[in-house]
């Protein structure tokens, strides 16, 4: 029989250290929902999502009860809508976002991702229409998340798309000015986007995915931080080992839940995403892990090295615990969703420049960062370009989820509520990138893209 301490330890991790399954995300292909008429396509989209995900929330709730482990979010990701909507007569794709929103509400998921386009090499007619529709689609829906992939290591950076996304982020913020630019919290600009990411706002169901699939995202920064208390003052070898052991346990639990959900729903299991995703709750912070390693505050010199170790150890520990690892897998550093990051940003120790350096070694990118409302679209585009360059050159996923909060200035705070948290408005560099962004065109793929 199991040891009493093991059982109590597991329950302690769940009760006090916020160990949970962060998301069970059902990927649904909408490729068979295209139609000449936008109304017909929207209805097909609604019907397919509600039919496929009808039992998702109920089954997850049963699993939560049986294992005694919270599944915080139940979500749906769909085929990038640009591809589905393209053959329809619609010019404004908001109608499809509304269909997704209704479907999400009907099945009880809090977010649905996939109002997306992949434009790393160029735009099709549908891609251009989708991007133009993003601000209105996000402003007029509650649960829909949008993402646009503007660069890959293989294709380089589509600088026309980068410019357009700078403008899109600005107009999404302006359309939702009364909620602090909330639409931007649902919009991710990617380089090297992955097809099986279960985490929002960047989830979509990629073109190599099956008809329907279950992907699971685990979490547990609190459990990692707590485990590190036992390695205080010890060398980094011990720190890495401790993180690996914790990541292994957390991932095993994710794998168990993923298999169970997949078999009960009759939907194939896709991947477990080994991410450390913080929430604004106390003790559920990635920043606190880095601080436990010996930094007085996240953002201090040493933060990038600490994060690199954390990210690597999480992967090494998790990879043996799951039969298929995928998604973004690593540590997330969303500023507004992490109590430690919020504090460090407010005190000025954590800056956008440091966060940019951190994105070279962690899971994603500049995430949930509020900047002054009068930041020019070109500056936002240039921030996107910098992140994309990091992703393209380092062969990793990077992303930008940035909120130019209308009417707000450095020192103000934007409150998004719930899991999206509170974002202190951070300063951006004063220099202009207007002429740089105006060039457009494509930045060629780096030499190491030629791997064949």
């Amino acid at each position, binding site marked *: 029989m199991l040891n*009493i301490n093991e059982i109590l330890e*597991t329950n302690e991790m769940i009760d006090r250290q916020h160990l949970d399954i962060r998301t069970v995300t059902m990927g649904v292909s909408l490729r068979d929902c295209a139609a000449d008429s936008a109304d017909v396509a929207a209805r097909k989209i609604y019907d397919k999502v509600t039919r496929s995900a009808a039992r998702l929330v109920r089954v997850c709730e049963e699993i939560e009860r049986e294992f005694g482990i919270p599944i915080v979010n139940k979500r749906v990701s769909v085929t990038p809508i640009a591809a589905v909507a393209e053959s329809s007569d619609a010019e404004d794709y908001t109608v499809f976002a509304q269909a997704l929103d209704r479907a999400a509400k009907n099945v009880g998921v809090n977010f649905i991702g996939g109002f997306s386009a992949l434009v790393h090499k160029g735009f099709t007619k549908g891609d251009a229409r989708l991007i133009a529709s993003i601000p209105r689609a996000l402003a007029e829906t509650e649960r829909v998340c949008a993402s646009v992939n503007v660069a890959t290591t293989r294709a380089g950076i589509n600088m026309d798309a980068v410019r357009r996304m700078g403008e899109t982020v600005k107009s999404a913020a302006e359309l939702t000015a009364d909620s602090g630019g909330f639409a931007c919290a649902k919009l991710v600009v990617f380089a090297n986007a992955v097809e099986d990411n279960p985490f929002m706002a960047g989830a979509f169901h990629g073109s190599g995915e099956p008809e329907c699939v279950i992907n699971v995202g685990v979490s547990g920064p609190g459990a990692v931080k707590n485990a590190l208390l036992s390695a205080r003052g010890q060398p980094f070898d011990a720190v890495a080992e401790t993180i690996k052991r914790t990541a292994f*346990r957390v991932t095993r639990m994710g794998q168990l839940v993923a298999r169970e959900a997949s078999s009960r729903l009759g939907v194939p299991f896709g991947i477990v995403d080994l991410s450390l995703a913080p929430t604004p709750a106390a003790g559920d912070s990635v920043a606190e892990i880095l601080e436990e390693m010996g930094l007085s505050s996240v953002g201090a010199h040493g933060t990038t090295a600490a994060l690199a170790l954390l990210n690597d150890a999480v992967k090494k520990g998790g990879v043996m615990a799951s039969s298929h690892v995928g998604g973004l897998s690593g540590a997330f550093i969303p500023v507004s969703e992490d109590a430690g990051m919020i504090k460090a940003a407010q005190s000025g120790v954590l800056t956008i420049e440091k966060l940019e350096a951190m994105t070279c070694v962690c899971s994603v990118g500049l995430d949930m960062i509020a900047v002054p409302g009068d930041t020019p679209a070109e500056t936002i585009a240039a921030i996107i370009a910098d992140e994309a360059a990091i992703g393209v050159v380092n062969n990793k996923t990077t992303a930008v989820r940035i909120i130019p909060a209308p009417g707000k200035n450095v020192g103000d705070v934007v409150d998004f509520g719930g899991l999206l948290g509170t974002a202190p408005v951070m300063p951006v560099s004063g220099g202009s990138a207007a002429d740089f962004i105006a060039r457009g065109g494509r930045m060629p793929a780096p030499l190491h893209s030629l791997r064949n």
Partner: protein
Amino acid sequence: MRAIVTVIGRDRVGIIAEVSGALAAAGVNILDITQTVTREYFTMIMLTDTSGFGGAFSELADSLEAFGEKLGMSIRIQREDIFEAMHRV
């Protein structure tokens, strides 16, 4: 289905009798028990087989939780698999 029942609370006379009585009434078979008292706190882990319980697992979990509240204890039941997954390679 094999499930672990965890009972935690202040120690007093009759806890094991009351909890095993409730499990027996629900048709749940006890396969193994470990218990310990640290200071005045009582902790008991029971390995059980719930296949004799007719209803849904959530009903059993709810009724044990409610029963625990009546006794002033925390009683939870979880499938054994989660602990196996976390602690056994």
